[in-house]
Structures are given as structure tokens and as C-alpha cells.
């Protein structure tokens, strides 16, 4: 059960030499915390017409920060990113399709 035993084998997939340091991860977490505080402030203060666009931008930035830094997509093979974006593309496509169908349905209903 030793924590310091020598590796039994070296798996090429487990080479993480270019990944960030814990300090960098803490910096990213601080940025995420600040962005979350900004998000929540839209509930307490009146941001007018920019509130919803601002929330969407903040959501996308937070999403990209977590995916890029914590999920390592910034450093890993682009194949993984493509798989994620494929899922997102279909999810967004589904939403657009449903909205279009709903609009057509309501327009044609007497």
C-alpha cells in the first residue's frame, strides 16, 4: 500500500508532463469564482437589457474554462474536443429544431 513504490509500467497515455501546476489551477478557480459572483450579481442589481446576454457570455466563458483547463482539452488531443463539440452541436440543433417546430405549430393553429 505504499505511495512511493516504483511504477510497474509506463503507459504513454498517462504522460502528463505539460499539464498546469496546482497554482495555475487555483488561479483558474479564482477566475471561475469571480465570474460566478458576477453572474449572481445580476439577480441583486439591475443590469437592464444586457443582463441576459451577459449571463450567456459568462456561462460560455465558465464552460470553456472548466473544459479547457480542468478537463485538459487545452492540452489533450483535439479528437476529444471534437467529441464534446459534436454532442453540443446536436444538443443545440435539437433545441433549434424544437423552437422552429413550436413556432410553426403555433403559427398554423387557428
Amino acid at each position, binding site marked *: 500500500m505504499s505511495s512511493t513504490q516504483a511504477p510497474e509500467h509506463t503507459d504513454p497515455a498517462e504522460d502528463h508532463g505539460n499539464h498546469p501546476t496546482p497554482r495555475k489551477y487555483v488561479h483558474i478557480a479564482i477566475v471561475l469564482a469571480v465570474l*460566478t459572483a458576477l453572474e449572481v450579481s445580476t439577480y441583486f442589481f439591475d443590469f437592464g437589457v444586457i443582463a441576459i446576454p451577459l449571463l450567456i457570455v459568462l456561462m460560455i466563458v465558465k464552460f470553456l474554462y472548466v473544459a479547457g483547463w480542468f478537463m485538459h482539452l487545452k492540452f489533450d488531443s483535439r479528437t*476529444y474536443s471534437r467529441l464534446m463539440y459534436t454532442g453540443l452541436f446536436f444538443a443545440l440543433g435539437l433545441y433549434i429544431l424544437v423552437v422552429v417546430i413550436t413556432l410553426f405549430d403555433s403559427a398554423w393553429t387557428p
Partner: protein
Amino acid sequence: MGVDHRKLGMWAFLGSEFLFFGGFVTAYLLYLESTAGGVGVEVFDIPFTSISSFVLLMSSLTMVLAHHAHTRGDLRRMRLWILATAGQGMVFLGGQVYEFNVFYREGLVLTDSPFASAFYVLTGFHGVHVFIGILMLLSIFVFSLIGKIKPNQHLKTEMIGLYWHFVDIIWVVIFTVVYLIPEIAVL
């Protein structure tokens, strides 16, 4: 920068999970105003949900620190961060159970309206994902304690980390789209 088939499989699974949650988010947005005369988004307690969202967001930091410790072969520190992550997950889940109880008492009942059904199904499924994540975290903690996970096997921590960060990233979307935007639109 090669492609590992295990990570590829995990990313294919996560890609499909985006579509899974995308369907529920779509249903929620579609039924946002279908409250059948009952309780709507005004029932949400944004300050409370903000705190639980923050806790879940910070659990991603402890998760990535657990993975980093494992890559350096430091299993003791890895276990510490894993426990911290699982603990934060439990706090989030406890908050969700409390929130559901409050909503239920205030009249937001699962079968009362399309809005209530869409809300509970979306956030409930997310809660189930958090619960599964906690089970995986506790499993890797126990396996590393009994020596089933070695210092050079950090891909296992990374895979669980990917799942955990995914759960966090979905909540980033849910918190904005389900809680904040409709609440602001109503005000």
C-alpha cells in the same frame, strides 16, 4: 499527443451526455410558462442555489488537484483531495434535496404542471449524476487505500475527474439557463 482508447470512450460517452441533458434543457425552456396556474420560477431561491453552485464549482478544483497529486505518485494527497471533492458533492446534493423539499411544500409538485415535471426531471437527473460521481470518488478512495490503485495508474483518477467536471459543467449551464435567466426575465 496520442489518443487513448479509454479516454476516447469516456469522451464519446460525455458527448452523448451533452445531448441527453440538451434534450431536458430544451423541454424545460419549452414548458417554462406551462405552469397550469401553479407555481413557476418565482419559487427559486437564487442566493441558496448560488452557494450550492459555488460549492460544486470549487469541487472541480479539488478534483483536478487530486488528479495532479496522482500524476506525481502522491496517493496520500490524492486521497485527501478526492475526499474533499466527494464532501463538496455531498453538500451540493444535500442542498438539492433541501431545495426540492422546500419547492414541494411551496406547491411545485412533479405531476402538477409541465414546468414542474421538466424542472424536476432535469435537475433530478443531474442530481443522480452527482450521486454516481460521489460513488465513483469513494470507490477510488477505497481502492487506493487497499492498494488496488497504484501511483502510476493516474488515468483512473483522470477518467473519474472527466466525469466529475462534466457534472460541474452541466450545472454551469443549468444554473444560468434554468435558474438565473428565467428569474431575471420574470422580475
